[in-house]
């Protein structure tokens, strides 16, 4: 059984989290993600979970740390300046191998920036701002439907690898309404024998900790975590690659801007320019191999981002100098139009840009 409903992206991700067995949500208001704490305040209790409006993003991520340590599926959400504040907590969650989901609905920056949609937090999400050697899986949906599917998946991946997972959407996706199909879903909750849930009467006592004063010990822990990352890199990469043999251009975009690019590609087709979209769905792991194996017809690559160009660094790494790379971006909350992108792409095709 499934049902079709019309929902805002922010609310749909909440519904998905509850379906996935999320039993704890902690957050602090910030535009453009306020629908998330609002929805959760209304629905967590009826689904047997807890909701706290924290005093800050720092407190919220630490509440997640506590709930996750106790073994329940936990989530927080925020937007750019708030995600910045969560970075210390994310580093501790990684250091203690705790699973959780962080929804990031990004807006323009730096500083207080603006409240309109932006993709200027690609570095913040994929490179982190927390201390230490670490990565976290980052999913970047491009529709409300995909937000639902990837939020559910994030909880599974978080538990499977004992890692924080981020769902990164721009403010556009958080705010827009689309029909979504809600399928029947029953979460499979795995055993967490490591949880500090106050059950030491029935087992050895558990410790959740990221401290290691012994250098070799800490190195060993980090090496073990990177073994886990190897497995994630091998199995969890997701990408949508529409580039066909004969296409002269690959246009790269993630999230909602990838849909604007699809419209631009239609305009280009009318002008006789064949281009195909590459849409990374996981930003970490980044689909580097897709860029190493492009058809030989591809002469140029155009990267489009709602930022000054951040993902382009990963594209460059994937392309390894085999094709020229160009960039088109708008920043600060300005959204590019299909026409703008088509114009830029046509210039590139002519060898002008």
């Amino acid at each position: 059984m499934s049902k079709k409903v019309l929902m805002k992206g922010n609310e749909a991700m909440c519904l998905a989290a509850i379906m996935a067995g999320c039993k704890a949500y902690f957050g602090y208001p910030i535009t453009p993600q306020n629908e998330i704490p609002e929805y959760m305040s209304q629905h967590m209790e009826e689904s047997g979970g807890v909701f706290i409006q924290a005093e800050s993003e720092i407190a919220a991520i630490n509440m997640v740390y506590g709930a996750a340590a106790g073994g329940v599926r936990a989530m927080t959400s925020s937007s750019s300046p708030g995600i910045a504040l969560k970075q210390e907590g994310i580093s501790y969650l990684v250091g203690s191998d705790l699973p959780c989901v962080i929804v990031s609905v990004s807006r323009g920056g730096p500083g207080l920036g603006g409240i309109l949609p932006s993709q200027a937090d690609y570095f913040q999400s994929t490179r982190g701002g927390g201390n230490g050697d670490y990565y976290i899986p980052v999913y970047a949906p491009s529709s409300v439907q995909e937000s639902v599917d990837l939020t559910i998946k994030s909880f599974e991946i978080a538990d499977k690898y004992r890692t924080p997972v981020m769902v990164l959407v721009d403010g556009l996706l958080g705010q827009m309404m689309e029909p979504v199909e809600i399928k029947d879903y029953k979460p499979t909750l795995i055993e967490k024998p490591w949880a500090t849930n106050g059950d030491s009467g029935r087992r050895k006592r558990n410790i959740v900790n990221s401290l290691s004063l012994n250098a070799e010990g800490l190195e060993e822990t980090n090496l073990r975590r990177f073994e886990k990352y190897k497995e994630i890199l091998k199995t969890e990469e997701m990408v949508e690659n529409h580039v066909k043999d004969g296409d002269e251009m690959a246009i790269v975009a993630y999230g909602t801007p990838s849909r604007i690019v699809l419209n631009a590609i239609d305009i280009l087709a009318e002008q006789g320019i064949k281009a195909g979209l590459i849409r990374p769905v996981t930003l970490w792991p980044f689909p580097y191999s897709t860029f190493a194996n492009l058809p030989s017809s591809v002469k140029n690559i155009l990267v489009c981002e709602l930022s000054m160009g951040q993902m382009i660094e990963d594209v460059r790494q994937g392309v390894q100098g085999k094709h020229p790379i160009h960039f088109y971006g708008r920043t600060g909350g300005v959204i590019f139009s299909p026409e703008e992108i088509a114009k830029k792409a046509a210039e590139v095709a002519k060898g002008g840009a």
Partner: protein
Amino acid sequence: MSKVVYEKSRGLTDVPMFYCPGCTHGIIHKLVAETLVELDVLEKTIAIAPVGCSVLAYEYFNCDCIQASHGRAPAVASGLKRTNPDKIVFTYQGDGDLAAIGTSEIVHSAHRGDNVTVIFVNNAIYGMTGGQMAPTTLTDMKTSTSPFGRGTASSGIPIKVSEMLSQLPSVAYIERVSTHDVAHVRAAKKAIKKAFTYQMEGRGFTMVELLSSCNIGYGVSPVESLSFIKDAMIPYYPLGIYKDVS
């Protein structure tokens, strides 16, 4: 026939503690551990220790333990206790941790009336990082970052945490006790027991502030550091119950 007159509490693990000789953290660990055993809740307790000299508390308390980031233990406790309401949760925090970097988290845990217990160890100094000034450092007291003595003009007048938090309506119990002699250590244990009993009864936020010493940080002998509690700290930080809902 010989009989056992004293035994190390099974609330503590059997490993040597790394605290400096003369430090009162060990005594406070023992009081908390004995209390958890006497109340028969050790097996359902989770201890949360953030950064400070007691960062290694997870090695010592013989129960589930979480190490938290500097100052954030009360938020970790909120998240844990709300999702495990039948368990006993306590934080163990120093005065740098609780009264400087973690003021927001402690105030709001108390403000929400979280049903947890806070063991607040006030030694008037940052012990772990080598004896720097804390918000609780006494006026004119010399530390490594107040080499001429704490000046109130630049650093303010020392913060009185128990007095401050007891103003919050959701707080169930706050008492300030001392660890400088046997009689006071006994009284401290009573306060700790009361705090945990209140938590078991679901009364809400409870905190025991323990005046303690850091002879290494003060640069004096252990005996002198205990006298410092009695002669300098207690007159400024009066002992007693600041809030009790019973």
